[in-house]
């Protein structure tokens, strides 16, 4: 035996009675027994929370990506309507407006819809065999704007109305604004859900930590008796909780990634079908980019870190109450 910092000879002489010292290490038991911490329940809670957080993040990323695709598509087109007026030739007016638009800098393509194409557009609602002569249906002209060009929409509007007073120009600004607000609202809602999930995780972990500390109070007291400081004791528990947090984070985040991968496969299986096309129109290809998978993985690690931080914080506050 030796006093701290000193070396001494043996306290007692055992003579020939000295036992054989085994070569292998004997300190095999962990100081805090794993079974004393409600590990499975905590792993399940962290996994579920991570899964929900990952699904929320993935969904927000998907919606943002789709919305920005819609926005860029919509913003790269303008629509001009030429309304039929009594005494005017609609075909000639359409032609005049088309010419006026073609002269506008920044416009790369102009596609006027003919009478037959307009009838086809209305076919789903009004059926086949429709004669547009009986209806005051306006003619539509689609103009494609060169990417990155700031189009002079006021000048274009003036040129168009000079050519045909009944023509109107729609640059889809209202649509784009609405889409932007919807995307922002979705991102905010996602952040709100993430905040709630993280708060719920912290509360669950704090309760689990308190429970573990209460169950292991005798161990904490003995460790105090043998001179262990709070930091030493907290570290023994902290390792357990960090491991549990990582397990939960990996399970939850992995499950979410698998789900996104599976959804992507399903979307590709259904592509070409009416349902698949409808989904593709709404949500794009329903595929998370690699940066999205990285974000989900990072989030799983973040939740594991939050689990460890919450348990450490609770450990120290609980240890302060134990003399």
């Amino acid at each position: 035996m030796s006093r701290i910092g000193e070396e001494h000879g043996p306290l007692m002489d055992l003579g020939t009675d000295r036992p054989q010292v085994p070569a292998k290490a004997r300190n095999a038991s962990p100081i805090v027994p794993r079974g004393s911490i409600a590990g499975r329940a905590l792993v399940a809670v962290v996994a579920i929370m991570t899964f929900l957080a990952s699904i929320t993040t993935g969904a927000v990323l998907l919606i943002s990506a789709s919305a920005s695709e819609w926005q860029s598509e919509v913003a790269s087109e303008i629509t001009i309507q030429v309304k039929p007026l009594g005494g005017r030739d609609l075909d000639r007016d359409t032609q005049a407006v088309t010419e006026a638009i073609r002269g506008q800098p920044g416009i790369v393509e102009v596609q006027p819809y003919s009478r037959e194409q307009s009838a086809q557009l209305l076919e789903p609602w009004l059926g086949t065999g429709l004669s547009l002569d009986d209806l005051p249906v306006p003619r539509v002209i689609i103009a494609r704007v060169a990417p990155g060009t700031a189009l002079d929409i006021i000048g274009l509007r003036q040129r168009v109305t000079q050519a045909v007073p009944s023509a109107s120009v729609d640059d889809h600004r209202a649509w784009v604004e609405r889409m932007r607000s919807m995307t922002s609202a979705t991102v905010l809602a996602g952040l709100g859900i993430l905040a709630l999930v993280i708060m719920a995780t912290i509360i669950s972990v704090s309760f689990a930590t308190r429970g573990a500390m209460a169950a292991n109070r005798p161990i904490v007291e003995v460790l105090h008796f043998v001179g262990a400081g709070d930091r030493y004791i907290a570290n023994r528990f902290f390792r357990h909780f960090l491991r549990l947090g990582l397990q939960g984070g990996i399970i939850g985040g992995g499950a979410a990634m698998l789900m996104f991968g599976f959804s992507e496969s399903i979307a590709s299986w259904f592509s070409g079908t009416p349902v698949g096309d409808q989904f593709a129109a709404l949500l794009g290809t329903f595929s998370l980019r690699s940066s999205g998978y990285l974000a989900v993985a990072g989030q799983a690690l973040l939740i594991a870190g939050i689990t460890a931080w919450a348990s450490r914080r609770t450990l120290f506050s609980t240890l302060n109450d134990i003399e």
Partner: protein
Amino acid sequence: MVRFENVGLRYGLGPEILRDLNFQIPAHSFQFLTGPSGAGKTSLLRLLFLSLRPTRGLVNLFGQDISLLGKDEIADLRKRIGIVLQDFRLLDHMTTYENVALPFRVMGREESSYRREVIDLLKWVGLGDRMDALPPILSGGEKQRAAIARAVIARPMLLLADEPTGNVDPTLGRRLLRLFIELNKSGTAVIIATHDITLMDQYDARRMVLHQGRLHIYE
């Protein structure tokens, strides 16, 4: 090494159970602490072990006023104190060997550096063949010996023992007393709280008698 001046202790709003304690425990000294049941022996030991704070008075341990110490400093001071409690406080999930080696493990020492010391001591206290046994299957006497071994293994500067021979037969009691005496000779100050007059008669040492909350010392 230890100095108490006008120390008083009460639990909550109850009566003062220790009053006006004035004494010193010199280094390398040996003393018995005795008195009737409920006199406050265990409370005094807990004050000495810093697991209780006095409600009044000055406690000075190893030259430091304990009222000025934080938790980390108290933990450091406790490394110099060994304690044997009546309820043993062994960890049930650890073997006897691991329980006894715990102070070294907490100090962060490599197991190979203390394995022989632990095994020697376990053999000395008669637990050589119970090293791998878990406390729930040990008898009361075996638990007590394991608790004593854990308290003395790191050769503390101050050893506090609460009824350390209460659960062992007279022969083993004498053997344990010899262990405490050996430890004292190697420089540890020893305080043994006991009711056992026979044990006290076996060794001529200072007696501290608690009666009605007050301490009387017989050199």
